[in-house]
């Protein structure tokens, strides 16, 4: 193997690990939030340090590759897009941790009808499905799969737009829940941001991958 290929492989493996890790964090944040599972929330917060250190590792690998190998063409697009994807993944990891933190701050379990009206579970599931698509597309080097993710982001945005009205009405009727409802509000907002970052990841992956795919078709 060419020396730069060894480095590219290292970055590739580490990013794959990062995707799986962040996906797991987000999925655990759903379980923790939906079931008010504080034990799980603590685990998420604990695991966040691994996400951060993996982000640093990937950055280091990318910097090393740029400094030592001056990548060009596909290698260059790969390293540039992995640097960006890495930071988007790290942000998604942050949001999972924030949600875990909210779980610890919420005083009383939120009422199921409110959760349903806000479409909380659906919101979580869409965000997680986006990460599943990323993981699958990335592992199989298939940018077509990445493109499926854009439609999901639209639904996330829609749910996010509607949440304030639904929550406001609920709070007017149940003023004592305002503290907990603000956390629900923030959670939906975070998940909407997860969608934005997932979309960035897809775009950056396509930037790296599509030119290559087109070229290899010839």
């Amino acid at each position, binding site marked *: 193997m*060419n020396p*730069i290929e060894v480095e590219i492989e290292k970055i590739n493996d580490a990013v794959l690990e990062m995707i799986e890790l962040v996906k797991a964090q987000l999925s655990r944040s759903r379980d923790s939030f939906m079931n008010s599972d504080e034990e799980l929330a603590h685990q998420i917060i604990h695991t966040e340090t691994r996400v951060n250190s993996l982000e640093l590792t990937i950055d280091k690998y990318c910097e090393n590759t740029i400094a030592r190998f001056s*990548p060009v063409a*596909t290698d*260059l697009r790969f390293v540039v897009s992995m640097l960006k994807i890495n930071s988007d993944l790290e942000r998604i990891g942050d949001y999972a941790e924030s949600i875990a933190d909210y779980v610890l701050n919420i005083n009383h379990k939120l009422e199921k009808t409110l959760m349903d009206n806000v479409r909380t579970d659906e919101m979580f599931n869409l965000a997680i499905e986006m990460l599943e698509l990323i993981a699958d597309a990335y592992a199989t080097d298939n940018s077509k799969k990445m493109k499926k993710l854009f439609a999901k982001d639209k639904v996330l945005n829609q749910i996010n737009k509607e949440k304030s009205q639904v929550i406001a009405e609920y709070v007017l009727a149940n003023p004592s829940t305002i503290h907990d409802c603000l956390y629900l509000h923030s959670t939906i907002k975070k998940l909407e941001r997860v969608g934005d970052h997932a979309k960035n990841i897809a775009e950056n992956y396509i930037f790296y991958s599509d030119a290559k795919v087109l070229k*290899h078709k010839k």
Partner: protein
Amino acid sequence: MVNRVMETNKFKIQAKDIHAYYGTHHVIKGIDMDIKPNSVTAFIGPSGCGKSTFLRLINRMNDYIEGFTKTGDILLDDKNIYASNVQVEQLRKEVGMVFQKPNPFPKSIFENVTYGLKIQGITNKSDLEETAERSLRQAALWEEVKDDLKKSALALSGGQQQRLCIARTLAVEPSVILMDEPASALDPISTAKIEELIFELKEKYTIIIVTHNMQQASRVSDRTAFFYMGELIEYGKTKQIFLNPKKEKTENYISGRFG
């Protein structure tokens, strides 16, 4: 009165279906290329692919080589440089060349820079002095040698000698400068100076540089031409070639995965 706008040439140099041979050895195989004025074009490709041969076609340096033949035309400012009425000396004045190894004459710095002018019969001392200073300044060498123009050119460092050769080329006021691996024998500091110089010179000149240094090609050029076995495989904006080459051969070559 009619306000006349100067027609600017779209292309400074145009190569049209060039084939070249050393004896029966077919080394350039049907190359077309358009080069815009005031641009830097890098020629890259593996050893023996024909970069130097193609470069030398642009100022007819191959004419000297026994057994060399070519078909196709090269236009400079829309005029065929191989037309029978072209004076080769005049062409070489218009299209200057800088070689891989600095090749100053074993004479003083001043005599080196003014050599081309003297050949043209210019002897007026102040004209010569003026040109020497202008060319040495353009070649970013003036500050280093201005107090010692009588010193032998051979006493200069390799990097200084190369800039002297560039000054010598500039002195006769060409419009095109061909450079065949001009920095391959230089240290990084001298190389940086030459690259900086190329960047400044393109305001006035059209420059073509042959280089084996991929980073140099990507740093200095606006467009890059990738040659392989006598063919022009890919020619495009340098950023496109280095970020997103269209041909797999180009990709493999620039990323060092050839063969």
